[in-house]
């Protein structure tokens, strides 16, 4: 039977003749999207088991990656304590966050008094080089102008207090998630520290909300290219450091302010991101203000995206990819070949921060897995187009959904019956309920010890992800078989 769109309707004789969703929409022979209930079930006003966190968390994470910096939340105490607890459970490291500790009078009269008092105490108690101030929803709602307060604080106290750098960022959680908060903070850090000057030969990297292991690996890659570099921010040491003999008020490590202030003079900056807006982009800011050469590549997860990253590095440095990365790439392809049969056509559901979802989807698509749902609690409006760019072979029918919560993902998983879930540990309850194994990546990982050490980026990260996924699929195959094969 032939159809208006010029192809053959079912039964389909060959894959080329099968209708795509666009064909079906053209001739109207397939069920239209409007008739089918959404895969995520009934629409709820409430968010049920959120697949996102709040903006100040992302900002605190970014501030933790500046040397000598203490994150400070302007607002009430609870937010700071909850965020600390949440991050500690993932990184398993101290994560002090000060708070200006609003009371009823701060809400009535504004939080300036609390901010001033809080800053003084933090300076006295911690002697930080930098204080990174982010706002909670409450401070935003009552309209505190932290920028002005900070200016006045410096003016009023600079003669009596040895003043740290005071950075501030506005992070209302009703306007964005933790991923947004992270980007806002990175941009604010650059905005408030970078100054003009003669060009210098070095590369600035904005790595995105990646793991300490990723940051270390980026450091290795950049060192191997031989050009000086600066990763902003770099929380690998503060959030994955050695055991101590003495207690450090502020853990060692992080990007020094002196390096950040030079960013406008860098040979080039690279921003590892795909879904963020121009307004969130620190690279765009440098480009606009100092005409810094700014590159943007998605998180280098998998071969294609890592290739893109290495290519940019080659372009900037004029060096070709260092041998041992080239051979790492070769070994990775060899592993892809060895494992391809186990991955092919296996259905996966991927969720998390949008940039992670883009990177992971491209990776899954290139090893033959079949993403059936790519979901994020974030709402950039760009998730779909970024995924389609990064993974052109992806079935256009693949569900790509923003602003989702775990209750909706669960509903979708019940329908889609994927073989694996790939995402943070908050998917565990639905993994258990639906009997779908979970591959833990990203943030947070609250139920394993290895959160900080989870490597995603570069050929090495792809190798680790690939091994983890294939081993899991082989284990499932082996376990679900009665014979008990010892070779699989």
């Amino acid at each position: 039977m032939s159809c208006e769109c010029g192809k053959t309707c079912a039964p389909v004789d060959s894959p080329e003749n099968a209708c795509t969703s666009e064909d079906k929409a053209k001739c109207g022979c397939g069920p239209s999207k409007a008739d089918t209930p959404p895969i995520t079930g009934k629409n709820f006003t409430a968010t049920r088991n959120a697949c996102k966190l709040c903006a100040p968390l992302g900002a605190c994470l970014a501030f933790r990656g500046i040397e000598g910096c203490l994150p400070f939340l302007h607002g009430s105490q609870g937010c700071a304590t909850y965020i600390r607890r949440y991050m500690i459970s993932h990184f398993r490291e101290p994560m002090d966050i000060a708070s200006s500790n609003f009371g009823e009078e701060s809400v009535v009269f504004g939080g300036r008094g609390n901010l001033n008092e809080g800053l003084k105490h933090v300076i006295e108690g911690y002697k930080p080089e930098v204080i990174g101030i982010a706002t909670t929803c409450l401070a935003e709602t009552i309209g505190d102008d932290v920028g002005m307060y900070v200016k006045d604080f410096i003016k009023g106290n600079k003669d009596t207090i040895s003043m740290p750098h005071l950075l501030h960022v506005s992070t209302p959680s009703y306007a964005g998630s933790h991923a947004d908060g992270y980007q806002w903070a990175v941009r604010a850090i650059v905005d408030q520290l970078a100054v003009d000057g003669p060009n210098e030969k070095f590369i600035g990297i904005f790595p995105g909300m990646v793991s300490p292991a990723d940051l270390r690996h980026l450091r290795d890659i950049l060192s191997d290219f031989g050009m000086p570099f600066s990763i902003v921010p770099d929380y690998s040491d503060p959030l994955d450091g050695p055991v101590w003999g003495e207690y450090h008020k502020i853990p060692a490590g992080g990007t020094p302010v002196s390096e950040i202030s030079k960013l406008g003079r860098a040979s080039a900056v690279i921003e590892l991101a795909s879904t963020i807006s121009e307004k969130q982009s620190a690279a765009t800011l440098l480009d606009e203000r100092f005409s810094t050469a700014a590159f943007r590549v998605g998180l280098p997860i998998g071969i294609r995206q890592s290739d893109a990253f290495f290519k940019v590095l080659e372009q900037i440095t004029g060096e070709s990819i260092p041998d041992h990365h080239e051979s790492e790439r070769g070994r990775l392809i060899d592993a892809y070949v060895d494992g391809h049969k186990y991955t092919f056509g296996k259905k996966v559901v991927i969720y998390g921060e949008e940039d992670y979802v883009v990177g992971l989807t491209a990776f899954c698509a290139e090893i033959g897995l079949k993403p059936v749902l790519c979901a994020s609690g974030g709402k950039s409006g760009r998730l779909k187009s970024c995924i389609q760019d990064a993974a052109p072979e992806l079935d256009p029918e693949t569900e790509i959904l923003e602003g989702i919560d775990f209750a909706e993902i669960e509903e979708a998983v019940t329908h889609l019956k994927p073989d694996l879930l790939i995402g943070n540990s908050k998917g565990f309850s639905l993994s258990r309920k639906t009997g779908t194994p979970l591959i833990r990546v990203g943030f947070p990982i609250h139920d394993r010890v290895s959160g900080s050490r989870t490597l995603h980026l570069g050929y090495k990260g792809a190798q680790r992800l690939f091994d983890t996924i294939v081993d899991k699929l082989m284990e499932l195959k082996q376990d679900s078989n009665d014979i008990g094969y010892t070779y699989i």
Partner: protein
Amino acid sequence: MSDKTINLLEKRKRQIHEGGEFVMEAEKQSLAGSVSQRSCSFCGSRVVLYPIADALHVVHGPIGCASYTWDIRGSLSSGPELHRLSFSTDMQEKDVIYGGEGKLYNALVELIEEYNPNAAFIYTTCIIGVIGDDVQAVCKKVQNEKGIPVIAVDSEGFKGSKKEGYKAACDALFKIVGTDDATETIPKSINILGDFNIAGEIWVIKDYYERMGVEVVCSVSGDGRVEDIRKAGRAQLNIVQCSGSVSNLAKMLETEYGTPMMRASYFGIEDMSKALYDVADFFNDDEMYEAAARVIQEEVTKLVPRLAPYRKDLKGKKAAVYTGGAFKVFSLVRSLKTIGMDVVIAGSQTGSVEDYKMLMELCDPGTVILDDTNPLELAKYVKEKDVDLFIGGVKERPIAFKLGIGFCDHNHERKECLAGFIGMLNFAAEVHSSVMSPVWQFAPRRANR
């Protein structure tokens, strides 16, 4: 490089006792900027109400407050598990500007239809009071339409510390009490208040009381059910555990229903035994007293020989204890003594001056007593006192681990049953597995000596 010497903030000195004359202050608002281990009233309300397993718990506010409290505690339920889901109105910019009442209303109606709860608790978070949502009115409307209690919990974080949140939660609970039809008191009955059924602890305690012939009418809020809370006014005695997070409810029950209250702790052999004998004493019932004695004898006979090997290894090891409420510290100090350990640092987030005085009397001279402390102070003292073990909540864990010190979680997030006689054994095993681990030999503070 950050400065390594840790000096106490001038204003904090009065909340610390290092020996000598006792002149402590407590129950003060945390200093701005001092990285308090405290949280907010919302947190307090969440702690108390969270384990009610057949109620809907909806956080009205921006997303974070709900995300961070999703399934965070090991409060078990023998039936429904609604409490393990996280619901939030996830306020967006336009809701903040135009108000969130409509959103709250829709959210509630849909959730109640979907999940069929027996009650709904609506927690207000910080910005709700500021934007002026009339949450009470929305709740009333939904309650009328849906025929279940829909209760606003006045828990805006900035209004105070956990304690105020406890009180708001008790006010909410009290609205449910007495809403069943029956009124007659139930003979030989108690309510267990202030236990959250972490790792099934309330089942252990309930079993002891039942073996004594006591009926447990309602538990607040571990394995809690709305139906039981309705009956709470009909019990003859309220047993309030530890920190007193639910003591406001007990006070209200005393005033309204004339039910007397009694404090108890279920941690450690002495305190657990006392909790049972006290109830028998209250009912002035010889048979019950004998039954209690039998329970205790049976349990302790089983327990003591099993504790001996732990005690042998742990003798003379030093511990620091820091908890939310002060009452628990007493039990922990006694329990640690039972397994041969010395407490050299003790403190809490919310204790009163009287609590600390008692604590000082219970501990050996020279023990450091801390009120509402912070990481820097904790680090200073654990190092000075060279402790082998730190007992606290998850926020204290990295401080201990970073310095290479054993740690035990004795907070709501733990997954081990530590209450009752069996809990004492688990506690000893847990402490033992931390203190005796060979990994500490590599910690710089030991390796350098």
